[in-house]
């Protein structure tokens, strides 16, 4: 049985639609990220799960019992969830230790046990040496560790993370997302994580639900999401990509300047008519024209129209000779081509994803 189920969840604010029918089921101990641009409804969805917002339609169930529905909701304090907020919301009038102990006291945990669990949590987030400090004396990263410890200490049925790293600077953010994943592996809490940062979602999640305009476009493991985006939006939002259109009427899929056998493409057996494919820049490869290319994949002659050197790779913009759609190619730093130079572009059909 699923731990947490969202069924046809909707939220309207007057006439504007914040969440337009979200279905999602989380297994016990699963870490799922809601990923999407701002205004896609991910935070509203999370706040509905937390109980701060009541749905207009649909329901939220935990362990088979309804928590939220248009006819009534269990208030946040009785859901046995806990939440980490964008602003950390670490109470400045309490010490680190008091912050962490707060939820445990509400559970009426005996004093000795409470002490033990607070210390244990502070050890886990490496904050024990600062337990008597007040939040104003802590850095942003340390405050977020306190927020994590405070939320996890009560062993919540579901842990909710609302863009917890968005206020941290880049290097700290990277450190903290590893921390969040480590804590998940230690405690196996069922977790819903809201973020607009795909790297953050990928690093932390078992599955990612990509949201757009109030709906979930695709739910998949990070790897599957990247290699097999199913919609134009997902392909574009998760990583960079090229979109090209192919004709799937015959046994070959015919693109503007190149064709490849249908059997070489994944999930292509049932495709018909015009289909858009997503091709990651990393799956494309440039070759010198004089290189022996026998036995390689489908290819096309191109001309380099622009290039940017980004340190860890070259970002080339290339145009197939006689074609009209420019493609983006990511090449290793040593594969240098000048603007205007001609080359051969090789496709890897196995990494091309047809979009709905």
């Amino acid at each position, binding site marked *: 049985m699923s731990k947490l189920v969202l069924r046809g969840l909707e939220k309207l604010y007057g006439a504007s639609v914040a969440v337009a029918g979200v279905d999602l089921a989380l297994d016990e101990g699963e870490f799922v990220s809601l990923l999407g641009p701002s205004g896609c409804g991910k935070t509203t969805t999370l706040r509905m799960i937390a109980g701060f917002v009541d749905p207009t339609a649909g329901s939220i169930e935990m362990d088979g019992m309804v928590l939220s529905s248009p006819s009534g909701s269990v208030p946040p304090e009785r859901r046995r969830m806990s939440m980490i907020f964008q602003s950390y919301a*670490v109470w400045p009038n309490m010490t680190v230790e008091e912050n962490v102990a707060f939820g445990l006291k509400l559970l009426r945990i005996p004093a000795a046990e409470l002490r033990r669990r607070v210390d244990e949590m502070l050890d886990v987030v490496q904050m024990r040496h600062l337990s008597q400090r007040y939040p104003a004396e802590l850095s942003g990263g340390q405050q977020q560790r306190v927020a994590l410890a405070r939320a996890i200490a*009560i062993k919540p049925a579901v842990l909710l993370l609302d863009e917890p790293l968005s206020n941290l600077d880049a290097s700290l953010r990277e450190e903290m997302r590893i921390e969040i994943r480590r804590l998940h592996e230690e405690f196996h809490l069922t977790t819903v994580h809201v973020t607009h940062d795909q790297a953050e979602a990928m690093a932390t999640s078992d599955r990612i639900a990509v949201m757009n305009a109030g709906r979930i476009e695709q739910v998949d493991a990070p790897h599957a999401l990247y290699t097999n985006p199913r919609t134009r939006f997902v392909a574009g939002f998760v990583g960079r990509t090229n979109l090209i259109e192919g004709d799937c009427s015959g046994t070959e899929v015919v693109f503007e300047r190149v064709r490849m056998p249908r059997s070489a493409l994944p999930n292509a057996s049932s495709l018909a008519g015009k289909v858009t494919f997503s091709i990651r820049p990393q799956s494309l490869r440039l070759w010198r024209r004089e290189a022996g290319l026998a036995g390689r994949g489908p290819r096309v002659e191109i001309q380099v129209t622009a290039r940017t050197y980004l340190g860890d790779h070259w970002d080339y913009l290339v145009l197939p000779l006689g074609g009209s759609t420019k493609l983006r190619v990511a090449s290793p730093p040593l594969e240098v081509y000048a603007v205007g130079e001609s080359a051969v572009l090789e496709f890897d059909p196995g990494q091309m994803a047809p979009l709905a």
Partner: protein
Amino acid sequence: MKRFAVWGALAAPAMAGAPDSIWRRLLRLEPAMLLWLFAMGVLLALVANPMFRLAVASFEEPETGRWTLANYIAAYGSARQLQALWNSLELGIGVALLSGVFGIPIAWAISRTDMPAKPLVRLLIFGAFITPPYLGAISWILLAGPNSGWLNLTWMTLSGADHGLFNVYSMSGLVAVVAFSSFPYVFVLTESALDLVPSEMEDAASILGAGVLHTTLRVTLPLVLPAILGGLVVCFLEAIALFGAPAMIALPANFQVASTQLWQFFEFPVRAEQAAAYAMPLLLITVLMIWLQRSLTGRRGYAAVTGKSGERRPIRLGAWRWPMLGYALLVCSLSALLPLLVLLQAAFSRAWGRGLSVGNLTLQNFRYILFEEAQAREAILHTFAYAGASALAAIGLAFVIAYLVRRRLVPGAGLLAFLCMSPIVIPGIVLAIGFYAAYSAPPLALYGTSLMMILAFTTRFLPVGYASASAGMQSIHPEMEEAVRSLGGGRLLAIRRVLVPLLKKNLAGAWILVFIPAARELSTAIFLVGPNTRVISVMLFDLSEEGNFEVLAALGAILVATSILIATIGFRVIGRDFMLRRGP
């Protein structure tokens, strides 16, 4: 699983289905709804009903309750009464202009230049701010009374003239006295706006060849014009609503202003319905001016409201520093130093006119007030009890309403905020007449009770409390409370353990901001006071009519000293600028 079962059971009724869902929702909203209803009820009683009763009373025959225009005809029927309205207008405009002359240069000097002794000037302006206008009036009677005032005596001694230079008992005297107590508003508003103008604004003008004076007049001051005008409007409104100072100065000088004329309607036989009719222009002009001020200061595009200050360097005045300081000290002496000195002199004198001599020194005035005269002791007790209680009530109510509004707990909370802020457009005198009209008659018959005084003070200073509580509430992220709830604590626990501790200083500051003006409030009190509810301000007024200036000065000194003490505690606990920074 036991825990799950508990909240599963709680969740169950919520799933009962569609037919009773509206009923369920009402039940679910109940605590917030109840609070809303409670706050609404209190505000209707405190704000809406008195104003409604005031309007009704102005159109009613007192005996029969029939609609009539007779009250208006009686109220505006004589030239004398129309002249009083005109005098009020003259007073208001005069005070506003004079306050600008006092306040703007000093604000500029303190904010933008290297004038020396800034802390001293600030302190003296605070002294002018904390001295109630009616005490200022008393001091100036002692200083500039036609024959006996200190300044006139000094002049006569020095020049050998047989009559003095100044006569405080005149319109110009009244304008000056009121301006001395209200120019701090112009100063505070102008200075805090100037503090936000980055030096780059002035540099841009100087690099084009403009001198300091030119830059100041053409760039700097126009940038803060909305703040200046806002300050002038506040001074104007202060002046026309004031009761004490005009009653002490205008009546002996044999002219009336609107507030003293209103007072006449309450002399025997009481004609409250005529007073109500006569109060209308005062109310309307205040509504209009506040609206004007809001639209002035609410305008965008001025540096004063961008809030981003770049680098700021003081303008070097060179030798002009000293004349500038001289001017500032002159204004401060006239508004704070001299009045307070002369007040202290009188307080410690057997007879104030006998001057500073050992034989004239005495503590008898204080002994009389504190130990011999039961009425004075009672008045002191009442003053602080009423001010404390109404500050508490105003802050409590403001806190509840600010919480409902800021956390969007109920639809229609905006109406609460509106009602809560609306006493700002009601002059104290008008509010008092409204309270009289609404609650003096049976069945409540609150006239002359402590409750009446406390309720009126609470209403009068509710906007101060609300502005403060609302700003504090806004500064605290709702997630602070949501964190409590997500961990299993209810809303009340979140308020008790997080919100209130975080707002402690803010609430204490708001309490002081209400307490100090409530402790010195005269214009509301004078209309609602009864024999058993006398407060210091009313007693001071009575003493001034008796001409007992020594005891009066001692009692006034106690009031000022207490105000300063509480404000100082506020500065210590809450931070230096908590009173002077805030615009009224």
